[in-house]
């Protein structure tokens, strides 16, 4: 599925989104390398969601340009949607369908053939050790499993890049860590991971981290380099230092 031959899964230049007189995202430029785990942080209201919607082909930029998974975010948003994975903590699976039905539904939406869906289902069952849960309604599956299933479903079409929007919110510490081991696994297989989180210990697990403040990217580097630059012991301190200067009234 990886059509993209460039070394970057995402390249963005001067990306801007205005709503009336309000500039939600203000000329952001950055690249994300293939296979990188990229943490996308920012205070509430900094413009993260708006930026992410543009990257996923859900919102047209007011100005600026960018390529995601090898497609132009201005002219090929539909191709982007087909070639990325997306998972958010808030909505990911249909609670009233079984695990197996969810797998089939998402795989079908992504245009997979019946035989490919069968293989993918077997693989998910084996990897997550949940064959006995296939005919269980999602609302009856424990939250930790549900979240791993949601991740498997969001990457069922083997996208080159997956966007994870606060995937671990409210999840217990053990499951949160298992989830990150899944992220490491897909990343080691070459998938690019673009992830937002409010847990700043998770920022430490990223290859690089950007921090948005008032619509701009105020800092972008590896966690170690950011800690050195801001004289901080943890990413939590880095975040507080960078986000402290926010002027936007949320």
């Amino acid at each position: 599925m990886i059509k993209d031959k460039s070394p970057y899964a995402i390249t963005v230049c001067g990306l801007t989104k205005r709503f009336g007189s309000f500039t939600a995202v203000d000329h952001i430029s950055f690249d994300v390398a293939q296979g990188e785990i990229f943490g996308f942080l920012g205070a509430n209201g900094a413009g993260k969601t708006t930026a992410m919607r543009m990257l996923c082909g859900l919102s047209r930029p007011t100005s600026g340009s960018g390529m995601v998974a090898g497609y132009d975010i201005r002219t090929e948003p539909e191709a982007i949607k087909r070639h990325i994975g997306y998972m958010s903590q808030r909505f990911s699976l249909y609670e009233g369908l079984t695990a197996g039905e969810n797998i089939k539904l998402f795989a079908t939406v992504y245009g997979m053939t019946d035989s490919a869906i069968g293989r993918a289902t077997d693989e998910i069952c084996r990897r997550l050790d949940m064959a006995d849960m296939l005919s269980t309604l999602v609302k009856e599956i424990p939250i930790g499993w549900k979240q791993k299933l949601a991740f498997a479903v969001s990457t069922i079409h083997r996208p080159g890049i997956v966007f994870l929007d606060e995937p671990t919110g409210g999840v217990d510490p053990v499951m949160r860590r298992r989830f990150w081991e899944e992220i490491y696994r897909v990343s080691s297989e070459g998938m690019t991971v673009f992830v937002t989180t409010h847990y700043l210990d998770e920022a430490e697990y990223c290859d690089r981290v950007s921090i948005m403040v008032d619509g701009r990217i105020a800092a972008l580097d590896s966690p170690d380099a950011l800690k050195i630059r801001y004289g901080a012991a943890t990413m939590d301190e880095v975040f507080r230092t960078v986000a402290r200067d926010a002027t936007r009234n949320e």
Partner: protein
Amino acid sequence: MTAAIATEGLTKSYGSVKALDNVSLNIEPGELFGLIGPDGAGKSTLHRILATLLKPDAGKAAVLGLDVVRYYSQLRDRIGYMPERFSLYHDMTVMENLRFFASLFGVNIADSYPLIAPVFRQLSKFPDRMAGKLSGGMKQKLALSCALIHRPEILLLDEPTTGVDAVSRSEFWDMLGSLREKGITIVVSTSYMDEATRCGRIAVIDKGRVLAAGTPDALTRHMSGKLYNAVASDMFGLLTRLRKMPEITDCYTFGSTLHLITTGRFDPAGAIGYLKAEGIADARIYPATPGIEDIFIQLTRDD
């Protein structure tokens, strides 16, 4: 002294799911008490029972010495409750919402203003904005103002900081600290384990059960096994190697380091030697101070 909140054997099921399983807690007047646990732990169910909005299947709960089922109507005047979901009127302005809640409780805003001022101050700049148009942080402040408008003795806050960024969360906890100083008993639930340190006492909750309760310090002091940090340039390689060592009972990521729970036989120098033989030459292992997350991981590991 009567406990501000006392529950005994509180149990509540939804169909086959046991949301609360024999929960007994005592919360003293003036405490800032934290219910710490992940989604699905039972925090909201406990809050709803204490707020007199839900009846338990078994067990008892008393707030301010009054049974929550029998004296629900008296209690509602004395309890302030902020549910997890924003539950103000989106199509009413900031001031309309505040006035509405004041009139429900038969109080006037001026009398309560000194109490809510620290929370409401930023909102007072745009009294005519629709509540639905406020940002997440501002909605949260308005909801807290409305929950405080009748000057309750008990404040029940259900996950007020979920989805809120680290800086705003910290400010919110500062506000709770100053409300506590005014003598209000506060029960606040959170799934952010690091917020436990902002509470006087906490109960760690999972799957409807209280796993441990006490001050955050006391809970971390009782951690069994010695805790170490481990770091190396190849963190994932380090993790998989360390998990193979029998003297390490658990090993997991913890921000920029790994945490190792060890048995008495663990020798850091020996471990460094083993890692060198396995091709990890730059590992460092040094003692770590446990936090509430470590406690939670330990308490739930055998499930």
